């Protein structure tokens, strides 16, 4: 079947979608948006968290056909969508310590694709990213939390992120990142 939907503000279409296919599969495999991760396919890990009509959910549990005509925002759409704070517009390029041969410029004026949302920048700055598999889902969940509640306490942060699993960080740095983002955005 064919489905048409808005993804990150753009009208998108996918053909030959299998009727039992998840929205996550369509985003990753048919629309070139691999930001949302596929880890469990059963709603347990939250690494596929997206916005569907403004509400967060697990893309692995949405049938592609249910998203027809709807509005989807993925982690790739966060920076464009976020508040135009200084952090977002003038973010440094995503360059950590450079190791190995440098094949191109690693610093320099950021292009649009490199502009980060303050939540993304906070995750980098706080060291909340290790393997990074859980990160996109946590970014969307954090973005949602801070949109609803700009100054959450720790219990509220834990509750808001309770659907997102991380196997690397032990969560402390993630909590730091959320507090940092809240402070910068508030």
């Amino acid at each position, binding site marked *: *079947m064919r489905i048409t939907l808005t993804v990150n503000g753009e009208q998108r279409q996918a053909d030959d979608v*299998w*009727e*039992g296919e*998840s929205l996550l599969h369509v985003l990753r495999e048919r629309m070139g948006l691999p930001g949302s991760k596929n880890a469990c*396919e*059963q*709603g*347990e890990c*939250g690494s596929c*968290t997206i916005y569907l009509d403004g*509400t*967060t*959910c*697990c893309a*692995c*549990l*949405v*049938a592609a*056909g*249910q998203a*027809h005509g709807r509005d989807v925002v993925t982690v790739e759409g966060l920076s464009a969508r976020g508040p135009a704070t200084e952090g977002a517009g003038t973010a440094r390029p995503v360059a950590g310590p450079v190791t190995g041969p440098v094949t191109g410029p690693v610093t320099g004026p950021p292009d649009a694709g490199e502009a980060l949302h303050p939540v993304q920048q906070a995750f980098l700055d706080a060291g909340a990213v290790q393997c990074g598999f859980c990160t996109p889902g946590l970014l969307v*969940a954090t973005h*949602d939390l801070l949109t609803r509640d700009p100054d959450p306490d720790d219990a509220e942060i834990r*509750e*808001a992120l*309770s*659907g*997102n699993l991380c196997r690397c960080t032990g969560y402390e740095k993630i909590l730091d990142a959320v507090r940092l983002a809240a402070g910068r955005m508030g």
Partner: protein
Amino acid sequence: MEFLRPDGLPDVLEARAAHPGALPLMGGTDVMVALNFDRRRPDALLDLTRAPELTAWDHVDGMVRLGAGVTYSRVIDELATELPGLAIASRTVGSPQIRNRGTVGGNLGAASPAGDSHPALLAGFAEVELASRDGVRRVPVDEFFTGVKQHAGRGDELVTAVWIRPATGPQQFSKIGTRNAMVIAVTSFGLALHPDREQVGTGLGSAAPTPRRARDAEEFLGAELDWSARRDIRDSVAAEFARLVATAASPIDDVRGTAAYRRHALAVMARRCLSWAWAEHQGRRH
């Protein structure tokens, strides 16, 4: 496989009648797991999310008519005062992402003995509205569950709503699990005090092949409580209530817990829910 996405309830019910093999799909938090893991391959999926009639709730005849497609998040945000038991239970479901998609109608459709909305619906004496192309009927929720993951809806029917009286007294829900989020209940208990009728409602989850009420416990406690003077509950009364709740269960041993543990836990939860609810009832006097 076919994907049916009719707009509006009349077309949904037409499609239901015309495609008996189609699997209804609301929030997808049960259905999509089954599809992703190849546990189900229905001939067709019947998407219910394009029927706005299902996602609305309203006051009708002094009751709340809760559309089958109302999510847990909305129950928590919009109905915590009128349906406190269901709202408390909804807060324990899955995670924010699951609560944003998962629905009470989907919980009833799945009819799992562990479904978290069921104890609250049982304790609240709710009725399940079933509709087909040919008509609408209402079934008391304690007659709705007919077996493990089986319910009273016919193949041409859908759950369209749940009818519940707004709370007239305190309601509680308690659930045993290994962590706060994302757990299927080892066992669970719902309690509703109905002071207007001097009745007690209970619901047991993961305690029998179907969710069920503890009727003897309800009758015993309803007669013992001092509804108007609101005097403290004697220990012997609380203990007997807890015992009757535990005996109403017919639990099994499984990976989540033993039958003996479940019975014990039910008695503990019954007593705790009663003490919380009665304290609230006493507090309201002032």
